[in-house]
């Protein structure tokens, strides 16, 4: 029975110096959410994309092939964010943690996971760059627009976007627990209407070309900075919503 604990029975267990680091370890207790499923999503989509590229190139189509498959793990990080909240918050309260410690620790855990997935992304991109798209001119990670400023900038952009989706999922899960499904749905609808309103405004002013121009001129790194700013805002929003959440 006690075999699981047989080590260091008599010595003091090395406790994390900070309880926030403890939250990171708590989040990684469940390796499925933070490690295996993201790896599986990335690996799975990569494999499928390669097979599609192979079929296309086998049928004699020339020219480079690009796909948006590498963004699949980004979306999944919204799920990771929601899981980090739903699965661990109530236990963290039983561990006498403050909401601040839980929030920070969860963000650090997500950052570690996002760094890992971004490294894989950069590595794939470098391989594609070196092998001219696996020899068949097919690119999964090496997207020119993203890689314009080099591998570091590409990795950073990928990292920030991953974090953005995590924080969004995290915040929505908190809002759901705090306000319930009705208010969450209403606020989602309001956000959708606001975005549509913005789009209508741009259309009415026939400003779409300028908007696209802005996106292109902002470049990947510029976009990453904007996304980082949004991340900060959403993270602050998450903490403020979590502050008054009861168990």
């Amino acid at each position, binding site marked *: *029975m*006690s075999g*699981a*604990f047989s080590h*260091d*029975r*008599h010595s003091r*267990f090395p*406790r*994390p110096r900070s*309880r926030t680091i*403890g939250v990171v*370890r*708590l989040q990684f*207790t*469940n390796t*499925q959410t933070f490690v295996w499923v993201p790896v599986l999503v990335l690996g799975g989509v990569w494999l499928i994309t390669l097979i599609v590229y192979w079929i296309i190139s086998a049928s004699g189509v020339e020219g480079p092939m690009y796909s948006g498959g590498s963004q699949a793990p980004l979306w999944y990080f919204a799920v990771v964010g929601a*899981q980090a909240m739903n*699965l*661990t918050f*109530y*236990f963290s*309260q*039983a*561990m*006498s*943690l*403050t*909401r*601040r*410690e839980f929030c920070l620790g969860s963000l650090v855990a997500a950052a570690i996971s996002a760094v890992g997935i971004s490294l894989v992304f950069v590595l794939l991109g470098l391989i594609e760059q070196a092998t001219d798209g696996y020899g068949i001119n097919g690119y999964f990670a090496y997207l020119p627009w993203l890689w314009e400023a080099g591998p570091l900038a590409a990795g950073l952009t990928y990292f920030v976007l991953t974090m953005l989706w995590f924080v969004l999922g995290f915040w929505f899960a908190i809002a759901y627990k705090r306000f319930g499904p009705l208010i969450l749905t209403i606020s989602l609808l309001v956000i959708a209407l606001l975005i549509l309103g913005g789009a209508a405004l741009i259309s009415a002013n026939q400003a779409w070309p300028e908007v696209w121009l802005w996106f292109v001129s902002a470049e990947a790194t510029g976009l990453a900075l904007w996304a980082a700013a949004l991340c900060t805002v959403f993270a602050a929003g998450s903490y403020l919503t979590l*502050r*008054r959440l*009861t*168990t």
Partner: protein
Amino acid sequence: MTSVIEVRHLTKTYKTTTALDDVSLSIEADSIYGLLGRNGAGKTTLMSILTAQNFATSGEVEVFGEHPYENARVLNRMCFVRESQKYPDDSTARHALAGARLFFPRWDQAFAEELVADFRLPLKTPIKKLSRGQQSAIGVIIGLASRAEITFFDEPYLGFDAVARQLFYDHLIADYAECPRTILLSSHLIDEVADLIENVIVIDHGRIIMDEPTDAVRGRAVNIVGDADSIQRLVAGREVIHRETLGRVASVTMLGRLSEVDRHYIAEANLDLTPVSLQQLVVRSTRDETAEHTDSDTDVRSLQP
């Protein structure tokens, strides 16, 4: 004695209900408190607010002289595992205990292992596949082995069989003797915990209706066993809160203390005095919150022949 928890005029209202109504309490260090009351009386709400898991509508809470909300310094010294604690999905008891080991500064690993063996808790089964009693055991083990300076047990024995409950009580008392700390145990199995708790707090409809040392509560009534007729003569005119009869033998609990004359009569009539059931007293005070009025006048009444 120093107080570790001070609660002043604490009120918690939800949209339609009042969970806590002007509660004022003082909890002393190194003592076991029984927080008793019916379901929905406000026990869990009170514990949640004390551990900053819930928020007061009005009133003040101080734990170790500070407000517990978002206060790691204070929370660090407390442990509150809920009656139906939620654990991370797919986590096992081993994960939960490893987590507790990370966060509770006074955690005793050897003690935790002993408890795991005693409660026969499977460590590798996902928690959601454990039986209700086994899930409760996780909470009990965390609560005991964390050795937090203030430990809350909220109906910790849900799904426990009699053996597991006794194990919990025995471990609690033994470990408390070794490592004195403040324990708040909420329960509705009043007679089972009666011998553990040094202080009784009874809460009903969100109000504190009793907050006294257990001995003082017990001293408010006497239980007499013996010949039904003889007992009838003794208790005539007094407030009887519980009566059981079997043939000619009766067991009667009545409010008030015994006078010298009473004791003499009891000896002559061959009646026995037995320990008063705390449960009877609590049930009575919960049923009728104006219990106080009977205290003074039954005390002085003498035996009516």
